């Protein structure tokens, strides 16, 4: 960028030393600090130096990357922190009650400034030098800095030639500032750590929910001792193509994703071809990358976090984090162990926007447990936990054990879905708690001990029909109960008779539960599904039950009438054999009615050694692996 080479001469009346500039600061002032790595370090240092001369200065900030010297205990009477988001540098202050936290939607913060509801006396910000038109760029932090600078009575800007010039809506007129403090210093940097193993697992599930061509948001915040899960998701998206980015924060990981070629922005509905963001934290390499780079459009929070703007983007996927979630779907993400931990940030804005988006997905990620083994999925939120996303607006929840889709689902369905992605060690207890809390029917007592979620990997399979339709096979799941009921009631009389060998089969709660709650060891059941608006539609169920004495399993399956004669039976049979063999089972047994010629054909043409005998119109098969 070509700056005005003579700017120090042109605007010399406005230039002051850091000390002179900060001498304008008075006791009782409310001071806004520039965000993240855009924090004006020289001004903050100068402000801390005059701590002895001032009292009761309220520091308003979103989050800062510096070490926040003003937050030290010895300055308690000089500086009071009031943060919209709790970063690591002020967490202690706020948890000890020395500082304050303002829970607010990020998208609403500019309005607090614009309406005059939260008047600012001073704003300390960092900008680039002015160009020939007298415009300066807010550089790495446009977010709420723009509205703060537009509203504060006194704006002191650290003018730093090392600040990258960013494109978008990041410019501010030099005459809209009051004092310029030249400073040629490196920007604060943020090193990213390699993602935690749990994050990587969660990221794989999330990546499965992000089709190519989606526009993605990666939420702020971190999980204690696990770190930033969206970071890991970014890495997991490298195999995609034509992704778009509309997110609050740009990091090195996003730069890597862009460089990998996965991002084009060409399928965005608005801001096509642009990476839209409001601030940036990372290394010098990243700052160089964004400098005057037309790919990026830095916009203020009032645009980036506007859920209407987000919702207009088709296929918008928001990826955020939770610290705790209850079985009804209330998402806590600003507190941990009864203390404020992070903040609301843009989670609600993006979650809502993505939910409204055509083909969008609002995803909340959560590790199933804390590092010391406590479940983060609980029947009730812990004392002091703050709900950020309500149970009415939660959509996808992803843990390292899978994906639960909660939107539009009853409390019972949510409970079962969430238990199924909880850590296996906690599932029994969660089920007990859920029964006690009346989240699920009391007869679930019966399935206690059977609430097992199958290992996902090997039981999954797909089958491509001649018509090109792809069917997905997976182990049956406790949340399949309503689907199972749908299937059974849809079957024709003939199919029912063939399967259950009775004309008067009645399916009560108990019978259906018996289908769904299987231990996946002795009792194995797989379902063939098709994606539908409400989730999956089950078209086929295959099951075997091991008789441990003979080490043989009895096998049976049922297929929706309209999906019969398409090779599904054969496929399922083979898939079950694969599973059974892996479990060391010696063979299958089966009973088939004499009229059920198709089933008999499947067994007879399986290629395995098959013995059969008939008695009272029922064939008994015995298959050796």
């Amino acid at each position, binding site marked *: 960028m070509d700056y005005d080479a003579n700017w120090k001469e042109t605007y010399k009346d406005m230039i002051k030393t850091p000390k002179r500039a900060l001498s304008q600061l008075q006791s009782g002032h409310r001071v806004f600090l520039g965000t993240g790595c855009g924090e004006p370090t020289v001004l903050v240092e100068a402000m801390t130096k005059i701590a002895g001369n001032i009292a009761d200065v309220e520091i308003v900030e979103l989050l800062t990357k510096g070490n926040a010297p003003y937050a030290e205990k010895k300055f308690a009477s000089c500086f009071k922190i009031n943060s919209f988001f709790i970063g690591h540098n002020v967490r202690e202050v706020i948890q000890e009650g020395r500082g304050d936290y303002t829970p607010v939607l990020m998208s609403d913060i500019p309005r607090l400034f*614009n*309406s*005059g509801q939260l*008047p*600012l006396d001073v704003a300390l910000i960092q900008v680039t030098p002015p160009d020939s*038109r007298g*415009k300066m760029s807010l550089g790495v932090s446009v977010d709420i800095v723009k509205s703060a600078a*537009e*509203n*504060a*009575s*006194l704006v002191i800007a650290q003018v730093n030639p090392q600040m990258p010039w960013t494109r978008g*809506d990041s*410019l501010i007129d030099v*005459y*809209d500032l*009051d004092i310029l403090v030249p400073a040629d210093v490196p920007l604060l940097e943020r090193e990213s750590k390699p993602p935690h193993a749990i994050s990587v697992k969660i990221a794989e599930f999330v990546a499965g929910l992000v089709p190519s061509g989606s526009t993605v948001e990666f939420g702020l915040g971190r999980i204690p001792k696990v770190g930033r899960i969206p970071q890991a998701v970014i890495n997991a998206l490298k195999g995609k193509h034509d992704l778009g980015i509309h997110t609050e924060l740009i990091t090195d990981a996003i730069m890597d994703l862009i460089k990998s070629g996965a991002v084009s922005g060409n399928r965005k509905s*608005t*801001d096509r071809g642009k990476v839209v963001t409001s601030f940036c934290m990372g290394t010098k390499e990243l700052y160089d990358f964004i400098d005057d780079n037309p790919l990026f*459009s830095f916009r203020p929070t009032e*645009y980036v976090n506007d859920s209407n703007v987000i919702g207009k983007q088709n296929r918008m996927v928001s990826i955020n984090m939770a610290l705790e979630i209850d079985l009804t779907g209330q998402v806590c993400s600003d507190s941990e162990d009864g203390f404020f931990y992070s903040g609301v940030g843009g989670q609600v804005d993006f979650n809502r926007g993505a939910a409204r988006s055509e083909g969008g997905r609002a995803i909340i990620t959560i590790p199933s447990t804390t590092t010391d083994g406590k479940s983060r999925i609980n029947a009730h939120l812990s004392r002091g936990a703050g709900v950020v996303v309500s149970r009415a607006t939660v959509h996808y929840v992803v843990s390292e054990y899978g994906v639960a889709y909660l939107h539009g689902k009853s409390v019972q369905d949510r409970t079962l879905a969430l238990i199924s992605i909880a850590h296996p060690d906690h599932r029994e207890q969660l089920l007990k708690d859920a029964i006690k809390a009346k989240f699920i029917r009391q007869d679930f007592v019966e399935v206690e001990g059977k609430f097992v979620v199958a290992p996902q990997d090997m039981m999954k399979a797909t089958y491509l029909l001649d018509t090109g339709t792809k069917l997905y096979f997976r182990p049956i799941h406790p949340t399949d109960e309503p689907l199972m009921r749908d299937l059974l009631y849809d079957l024709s009389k003939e199919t029912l008779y063939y399967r259950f060998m009775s004309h008067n089969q009645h399916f009560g709660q108990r019978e259906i539960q018996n289908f769904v709650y299987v231990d996946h060891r002795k009792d194995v059941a797989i379902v063939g599904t098709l994606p539908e608006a409400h989730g999956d539609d089950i078209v086929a169920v295959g099951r075997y039950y091991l008789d441990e004495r003979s080490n043989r399993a009895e096998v049976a399956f049922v297929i929706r009438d309209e999906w019969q004669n398409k090779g599904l039976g054969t496929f399922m049979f083979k898939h079950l054999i694969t599973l059974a063999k892996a479990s060391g089972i010696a063979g299958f047994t089966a009973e088939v009615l004499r009229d059920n010629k198709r089933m008999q054909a499947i067994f007879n043409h399986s290629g395995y050694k098959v013995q059969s005998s008939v008695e009272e119109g029922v064939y008994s098969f015995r298959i050796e692996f």
Partner: protein
Amino acid sequence: MSIDKLFNPESIAVVGASRTEDKIGHTILNNLIQGGYEGEIIPVNPAVNELLGLTCYPSLVEYGKDVDLVIMALPSAQVKAVIDECARVNVKAVIVTAIGYCETGREGAVLEQELAELCRRRDIRLLGPNCLGFMNTANNLNASFVGDMPVPGGITAFSQSGVLCSVMLEMTKEKHLGLSKLISVGNKADITGVDILAYLAKDEQTKVIVGYLEDIVSGKNFIKAAEDAANKKPVILLKSGTTQAGVKATISHTGILASADTAYGAAFKRSGVIRAATFESLFDYAAALSMQPLPKGNNVFIITNAGGPGIMAADSVEEAGMNVVEGEAKSSNPIPLQGVSQTNAGNPIQVLGDIDPTGYGNAVKSALGDPRVDSILVVLTPRTMAKPAETAKAIATSMDGVKPVLAVFMGCRNITLSRKEIIEAGLPCYDSPERAVESLKGMGEYAAWKQRPPRSVTRFKVNRRRVERILSRRQRTGMLQLGEVKGKDVLGAYGFHVPEGALASSDEEAVEIAERIGFPVAMKIVSPDIVHKSDLGGVFLNVSNPEAVEDYYDLMTLKIHKKVPEARIHGVYVEKMAMKGLEVIIGMTRDPQFGPMLMFGLGGIFVEVMKDVTFHLAPITEQEAIQMLKSTKSYAMLQGRRGQDGVDIAAIASGLQRISQLTTDFPQILELDINPFIVGDFGSEPVVADARMTLAPLPEKQ
């Protein structure tokens, strides 16, 4: 210190009393004696021992006792020395008749300032200089050289001009109007029109205040004093001349349309003052208001003995915005006039035949009894049976003191002979229906003003700090013209609805902004050197696609650069096209005396050609804002016409109230135009389509 002792002194000294008859010193002394003043009169003249039968003293001190009022019939050079002496005999007030002060120029002004300062230090109130003194009929005190004492009455008249004081005296005599006081204010070095108003408001003898003003020292104090006075009794003022400060360079519509006179009009309207357009009408109003009660409504009943003048009267009533109560033929329920044979019942007036005076008396009496009538106008022409004098008396005796009755005697020569008696009977009479109706209108407006609800100014929640920072930075950098971008920023902070938009400094940026806010967009050049953008091709409206945005950006900057090569171009403001609606102008221009004056008018020809605008002083209440809209001739346009829906009047009123708050909060805003302010259907927010402001420069640092 009160000025009561000025009007009610126990002793009066005339310093410079003279035996030479032509001299002021002689006239004043003579007037004091002739007027019948009962207190002590002390002529002071070192050269004379006795004057007009009174002992003459060489100096005030030598009189030996305290003196309340001193009248100085001395040239300006000698005045100051006497003030010191005054202090020694506890003088409460002085009248300085000398000329050679402010009215003569700079030196005189200095002299006047010194005189005023001296009086202030000595705790003496000063009337004048350059004044003719005053008369007070309550205590037979003629402390003036205006003329002979008038008849006592309820009217007090004051004037800045001495000559007009004499005219006032003559005029009241001719009209047989009684005076309480007549005051020549002169240069008002100490006692100003404001002090006089404040005093007269409390003065029991004064029932009606009449004044002639040339200028006002403090607009704010004037409004307060006038409002206080008008709350107690009618105040009728005639204002002439314009202030120097009122003539200023202006570029805003509001500024161009407002004159200094507008500010006075607005100030009078605010404070309940009845504004007289002519010298004649001053006393037309005064006559009616001093004799008749205030009307309770706008319904005027006209009684006449001739169709033509009756219709003229009816037309004037309608034109003045009042209603004529219908007579028999048109009304299904006419006003019954007992004991009168109605030979001809016309429309909409009551035309009586050639009847005798008692008939008129009865007609008035029965009309007064009808609840549909608020006031009565009797119009008489010379007919065979008409005996104006007797008729007037008959009417006067029929009056009930609850509803006003005004009489017009057209071409009745012989009536002038008995006018004195008619006036004494308490019936105001006029030579033409127009003048009577004008008086009636003034009475009605004053009555309405007196019944006004308490003024409660709405305070909107606004971002005052944001405006403060914008304005102070602009003042600091000397960029005193706020164009569209900053102007809208300021208005946005005060709750105005501003179309979404942003400044683009390249064609690429313009396209990005346009796509973000959505098509169609408006594009306007932004340059501190260009005020009238559209004249130079700096405005494109309804631009509906990205390609056009790009083209127009280049075209516009190229065009402007060609036409005004020296103009600094900041870029192009791209904003969402405002909705369709009625275009109005609201604005403000700051009067040096009265502060912010708000303006409302309909856009286009209504403002440009017809100058159909109204003004009101800030701060403004909601009712006043709505009244502003109603008092334009184009108000019908706002109410909807020819099948079109009306617009949201309250939304415009709210805009005016917000400007009122903005310009009251920020005295540095000298001018403001919102043009056009686009008003849509009910429920839609009016939009600021363009705006402009002028700021005052920062005061020079000492």
